[in-house]
Every structure is written in structure tokens, then in C-alpha cells.
């Protein structure tokens, strides 16, 4: 295999990596979490929630624009000094580890219920994570290509729920606004669905053409928001918010009710395509983990891929019980999301100040 790992991506690949880093297990469970509070207006909160990815990508753009397109670690060193940059890197590494292991655990949960009842969790987690390590070890360029092609293949998946248009009931989403309080109070919950967009900080410097890079971030945020909103809308439209809040993976339920002649359980096709998405998001997350690890320890990237593998495995095994995972995520995700938000905004402001001082 190629000896040199090239870390250069095009702007289009940047968009697709951002999308693939966010859209994962969420497309199955996002309608559920958002409807708990917002009821039938969940899709509105979902759309408003795209403020989070918009802010993060824009801040990332501002930081790098102000200080030149240096890599993440050097950026932090310039702004916060050596010690804090290490802390921040470790924080991001842990965050992404939590994301990826929760995705992997969720993937296991869906798989174990639907297609691999006979396998032990450790086996599934091992083989999936090994595949991921293998994928991530090829570096960012390969990830960019992968995200691009898998997105096109799996975009079919976002079209499947469209079949509900004929069968749903418009009364399920009426009245359009349940209440403004409910919608507003569930916006933070929608932020969690967009978690993962932090990868923007890590890959932005590697985009080749920096022209209009600002809009690339916007585009991907809007595409993600549209995917989520469409899915949430259709789920509520078809199931009603009452059932949506009762089922952990409502989109999967919709898939089960699609009837085509040769396959009695359409879910399997869905999982087949959806696995591509999951493997992609895991690979993106894993790239960040190994990237930060290799920056922190000065171990070559490819080696650090394999070194970090046991940690991610351990985290995942810990995350597997669905109930425990939810409790853990409920208690950590809000802090993570707000910390990331505060970090990116302050970094953007400081970088601006530095530039102004420099002038």
C-alpha cells in the first residue's frame, strides 16, 4: 500500500466529511429524542438546531483565516500556549472518543437486534473497530474520497422514508406549532444530534482551495439540517409523535413497514446501506482520535491508529448497554456541547484580537 499518507482534501470532500462526521446513529434516533419535549413540532426545533454546526464551522473558519491555515495543534499553541493546547487536544480527543464509542455501541445494539443475534458484543465490536482502524489508517485523503462516494450511495437511504408521504396522516403534524416554549426547550436536545461537527477544526487546514471555504461549512450544515429535518418530519407525519417517543429507533420502525415483493423485511436493506454511513462516521472520528494522539505524542499517524484502538474498544464495551449509555450521554453531552461552543467562540474572538494586535 502507499507509503505516503497524503493529507489533502478538496472543498467538496470537506463538505462530505463534515456531513459524514455528524450523520450517523442520529438518523435513526434523532426524531425520538427531539419529540420528547417538542412533540409534533420537533422538526422545527431540529431545523433551528443547525445553528450549532453553523456556529462551529464559522468559528473554525474564522480562527484559521485569522491565523493562517496552520494545523489544529499549532493553532492552540499560538492562542493558549503549550500547556493549555495539550489540555484542549486531550479534551477533544476524549470527546470524539465518546462520540465514536457511543456510535459504535449504538451500531452494535441495532445490529444485535436485527441481523447478528448470534454474535457476542466483543466480536462485533472487534471486527467493526478493526475495519475502522484499517480505514482510518489510510489518512484523510482516503477518508475524503470515501465520504464522498458513500454519501452518494447512502443518500438513497434518505429517500426511503419518502414513501411515507402517501401513507402518513397530516393530522399527526398539526397543529404545526405545539408551543413556543416546547420548541425552544428542545433546541439543546437537537444540538446533541449535530455533535461531531467539531471535526471541522481538524480538517479545515487540509483543504486545498481556501476560496469560499466559509460557504462549504454552511453548505454541509444546511445539508445535515435538511436530512435531519426531513427525517424527523416524515417520522412524525407517519407515526405520530406519541409513537415516535416510545420507540428508540423510530426510523427503523418505518423501514420495517415498507413492503416490497422480494424482501419481507426492508429493514435489512436499510441496515445494509446505513452500515456504510456508520462505518464512515466511525472512520472520521477515528481519524481525529489518532490524529490528535499522534500530534500529542509525536508517534507517526499510522502507528497511533493501532495504539489508540484498545482504548476505543474499552470505551465501546462500556457504552454498550443502551440504558447506561443514555444516562452517560445525558450527563456528559450537554457539557461537551457547551464547552465546544464556548471554546470555538472564544478562540475565534482571541484569534481576531491577535490579528488586530499584530496589525
Amino acid at each position, binding site marked *: 500500500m502507499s507509503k505516503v499518507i497524503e493529507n489533502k482534501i478538496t472543498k467538496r470532500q470537506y463538505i462530505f466529511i463534515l456531513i459524514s462526521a455528524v450523520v450517523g446513529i442520529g438518523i435513526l434516533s434523532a426524531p425520538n429524542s427531539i419529540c420528547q419535549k417538542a412533540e409534533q413540532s420537533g422538526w422545527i426545533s431540529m431545523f433551528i438546531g443547525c445553528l450549532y454546526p453553523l456556529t462551529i464551522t464559522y468559528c473554525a473558519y474564522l480562527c484559521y483565516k485569522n491565523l493562517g491555515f496552520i494545523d489544529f495543534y499549532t493553532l492552540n499553541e499560538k492562542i493558549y500556549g503549550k500547556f493549555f493546547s495539550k489540555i484542549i487536544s486531550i479534551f477533544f480527543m476524549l470527546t470524539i472518543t465518546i462520540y465514536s464509542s457511543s456510535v459504535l455501541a449504538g451500531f452494535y445494539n441495532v445490529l444485535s*437486534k436485527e441481523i*447478528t443475534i*448470534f454474535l457476542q458484543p466483543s466480536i462485533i465490536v472487534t471486527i467493526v473497530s*478493526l475495519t475502522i482502524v484499517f480505514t482510518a489508517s489510510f489518512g484523510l485523503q482516503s477518508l475524503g474520497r470515501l465520504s464522498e462516494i458513500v454519501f452518494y450511495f447512502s443518500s438513497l437511504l434518505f429517500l426511503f422514508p419518502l414513501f411515507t408521504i402517501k401513507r402518513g396522516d397530516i393530522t399527526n403534524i398539526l397543529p404545526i406549532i*405545539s408551543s413556543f416554549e416546547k420548541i425552544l426547550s428542545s433546541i439543546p436536545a437537537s444540538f446533541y444530534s449535530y455533535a461531531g461537527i467539531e471535526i471541522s477544526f481538524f480538517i479545515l487546514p487540509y483543504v486545498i482551495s481556501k476560496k469560499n471555504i466559509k460557504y462549504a461549512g454552511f453548505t454541509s450544515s444546511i445539508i445535515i439540517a435538511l436530512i435531519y429535518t426531513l427525517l424527523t418530519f416524515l417520522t412524525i407525519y407517519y407515526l405520530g409523535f*406519541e409513537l415516535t417517543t*416510545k420507540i428508540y429507533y423510530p426510523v427503523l420502525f418505518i423501514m420495517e*413497514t415498507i413492503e416490497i415483493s422480494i424482501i419481507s423485511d426492508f429493514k435489512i436493506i436499510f441496515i445494509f446501506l446505513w452500515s456504510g454511513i456508520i462505518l464512515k462516521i466511525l472512520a472520521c472520528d477515528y481519524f481525529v482520535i489518532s490524529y490528535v494522539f499522534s500530534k500529542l505524542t509525536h508517534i507517526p499517524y499510522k502507528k497511533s491508529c493501532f495504539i489508540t484502538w484498545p482504548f476505543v474498544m474499552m470505551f465501546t464495551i462500556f457504552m454498550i448497554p443502551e440504558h447506561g449509555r443514555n444516562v452517560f450521554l445525558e450527563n456528559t453531552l450537554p457539557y461537551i456541547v457547551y464547552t465546544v461552543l464556548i471554546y470555538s467562540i472564544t478562540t475565534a474572538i482571541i484569534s481576531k484580537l491577535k490579528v488586530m494586535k499584530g496589525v
Partner: protein
Amino acid sequence: MKKILFIILLTLLTTFTGCYEMEPIENLSIIIGIGYDIEKDAKKKIVDPIEMFVFKGDGEVERLISPGVAETIYNTVNDRQTVMSKKFLVGTEKLYLISRERAEYGIEDLLETLIRDEGRNEVAYVAITEGETRHFFSMIPIDNTSISEAISGILKFSHLANFFPKEVTIKELLFMYNQTGRRIILPYIIDDNGKPKIAGICVFDGAKLKYTIPLEEAFYMNMIRSRKSDGYISILKENNPKICYSIKAKNFINVDVDYKDRLIYTINVTLKGSLKTDTIHNTALTANEAKEIEKAFEEYVTEELNKTIEKVQNKYKIDCFDITKYAAAKFGKHSPLLSDEEFQRAQINVKVKVILVDLGRSMK
């Protein structure tokens, strides 16, 4: 070093894979129908008969009915597995039957199970039976291998007449139970000389069966609660079957809700269809005469609908038309206007419009 690690990993993976515990297809019992009965007086109340295929090879397929008796739905599996020679596989079932007694007793446990157990087939058909479901499963199917396929066929094509809704499946059952302003309404199947037959609808209150409504009344309830289903309507003159208008119609429903001291539902029923028989006119139909026929049907259907509505509001006192959901859509999912009392007080106006798209090929 790398190669050794790789080999160790490969060996471990091969040792711990699940392929040693799997059972090939011929060791599975293929379930085709599940029934839910109850024996109220016994200690073990739940009786779940299951219909499954028995394969004899060479294309020969027989069936086997295996009842499980236990305290709960899943304990019946305990009971059944003690006599079954094969592995139990859920997910292929095509039919769920619930006996009337069981439904009257309440099916909360079943509804919860259907949501929680991912293995269940969400597109299986579901119906209420007159007596024990076991009795229905032991009927002899005529043109199918199993009675479950026969009954699910009946349910599948029920929407072609009597304005039955298109989907009488488990997912629709869950929708009806969970969505605000709706209630479970399922077809009612009776034993007609050893053959299953749809004889009406069952209306639930919550998870308990409340009323069984015969087909004659259910016809007009179906006309309002379903959409784009088919039905045949005839107007007889002097009760003579030879002199009549008959149409085949597809129903389109549009409901407006308003609130002035009480709920005002305005149900716009549009029946689009074709004229099938006309023995009243003896000349070729003109546009005016076609209008007349339409008008006659409009009046007739309005009258029948009003009668049904009156009966429902006064006798059954719960919403059998599935129209409370429109109120929920207008006034919010938590509105106090969705109660049964409000429904009884409500003013329900029906506006019927009949459109004859096709007058047939007869020129007279």
C-alpha cells in the same frame, strides 16, 4: 511481529464467532399465525395458539397448531418449547388473531410487546374473532396452505368493498392506539359454517374492546373513517331489487373542525365512482339525469350517515368515526376538547358529494 499479531487475532476471531451455534433453516419452526385467547377462570389465563408450517419435503406443506398455556404472553413460549422439536422463529407471522374475550379483557400487554419486541412483523394483519382463536386456526383452509394466509387474504382485500380501510395491520393497530384522538377499530371475524368471515368492526376504548358493531352500521362508519376505499351503494325503488341505481364509489374525506360552545365537525364526503346499474331510466342518460342520480345518492347517503351519527352519539357514545384526530390537529394534542363527552355534545354536519366519473358503456 505484525504477522504474528494478525494470525493470533484471526484465530481468536474464528474461535469465537457465532457460526457454531447457528441453526440451518430446516431446524426452524416457521410461524405463520399467532392467536391470543384467554381463560378467565383458570390460574394460567393466557392461551396463545400458534399456527406454523410443517414441511414434508417434495413441496408438501402441512400445518400444525400448537397452543401455549401460561401466565403471560411470553411464558407461553416456555410452555410451547417443551413440546416443540424445533427452534422458535418470530418475524415471519402473517396474522394476529385476538379473541373477543381477550379483547374485552384488555390487550395492554400485547400492545406493549408489539412495540418492544423488534422481531415482530409490523405488517402482519390483525383481527378480532368471535370465539376462541384456536377454533379459527383449526378450520380447514380451502385455497391456501394455512388458515392464517386465508384470513390475512380476506383482510388484505377487505378494502375493495364496504369501505374498509386499506391497512388492518399491526402497525396501524399501534398507530390507532397511540396517536392522540384515535381509538382502535379492528375488523370482526366470525365463523360462518366453518369458514372465516368479516361480520363487522370492533371499537375499543383504550386497550379494551367496547362494542362490536355489525357490518350494516359499520358500512357508514367505514365510509367516514377510511379514505380512498371502495364500496358499493344502491338505491332501491319499492324494495324491488330489479329497479335500482347502483354505484361503485371511492370515498374522499375532508373534515373541518370549529368550536362554538361545542365542537362543530363538518365532514365533506366525496364519493367518486361509476354507475353500475340503472334500471329506473329507460332512455339514454343525459347530463341532467346523471346529475339527478348523483343528487339521489347524495340525499340517500346523507340520510344514512346522519342516522349512523345520531346512533353513535347517543348509543355508543364514543367516536367510532376516527374524527377526533381532526380536533386534535386543530386544537392541540393536549386540548380538553378531545374527550368523549365533547364528542357526544358535538355537532356533526355531513356534506356528501357524489361524482359519477363513468356512466358505463350502456346506451339503452
